């Protein structure tokens, strides 16, 4: 994995968290700082995935796994 990938993940998580606040926040019930931290932390998960799209290692891993048949009969 490239060193920039976790940094990109933090950036994408910020974008996701901001978008969710803008779209879903209920005016009378704003997100507190504690909840915003929770939201940002959770947003790191999909943020990491988006960052991994710009990293060759996950793509290579997918191609490697695609060559394996996990369900073929084991010969004894």
């Amino acid at each position, binding site marked *: 994995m490239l060193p920039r990938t976790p940094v990109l993940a933090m950036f994408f998580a910020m974008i996701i968290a901001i978008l969710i606040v803008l779209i879903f926040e209920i005016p009378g*019930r704003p997100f507190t700082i504690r909840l915003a931290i929770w939201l940002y932390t*959770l*947003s790191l*998960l999909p*943020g990491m*995935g988006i960052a991994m799209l710009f990293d060759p290692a*996950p793509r290579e891993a997918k191609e490697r796994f695609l060559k394996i048949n*996990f369900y073929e*009969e084991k010969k004894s």
Partner: protein
Amino acid sequence: MQLGHVAVSFIISSYAPQITGGAMQAFSLESILVAFGAHWLPNLDVIPIKLGWAKDSFHCTWSHSLIFAFAVALILLPFNSAWAALALVSLIIHYLADMPSSVGLPLLMPFTNKRFTINLWADTGHSGWDALIGTYVQAWTWILEGGAFVFLFVRMYQLGVWPFIS
């Protein structure tokens, strides 16, 4: 999908009133148990494999077909129609959550063995540590499963459940 099924089960439970016509409340213990039970039911096909009663290739076959989902719903229907509705939706959403895997799902079994997939990530086997690790070195599992946890957070916020109780 692996760990994301946990978030998806809770999300289904959050829509229990809409799915059951108001017969069940969102995030009630009943709706959580039914949604979890039905949503995880297809993956119990690893039990006969682990016990040596079925081959590895049994995974993602009958338990991941539409006929299985309708059979489960039909079995539950005489006892509780709300359970049947929630179980049917939970099972179909399980199939949708598994469709991005390269293994593909034979949704139309027994009429055809054609497997349906959108192939966003490579399948890494039915169980075990290697399968789990292999799943999470791929990008789209993080996007979709992580996205499920974020969406669950939004649902909990919208419905004002813990930790959003003011």
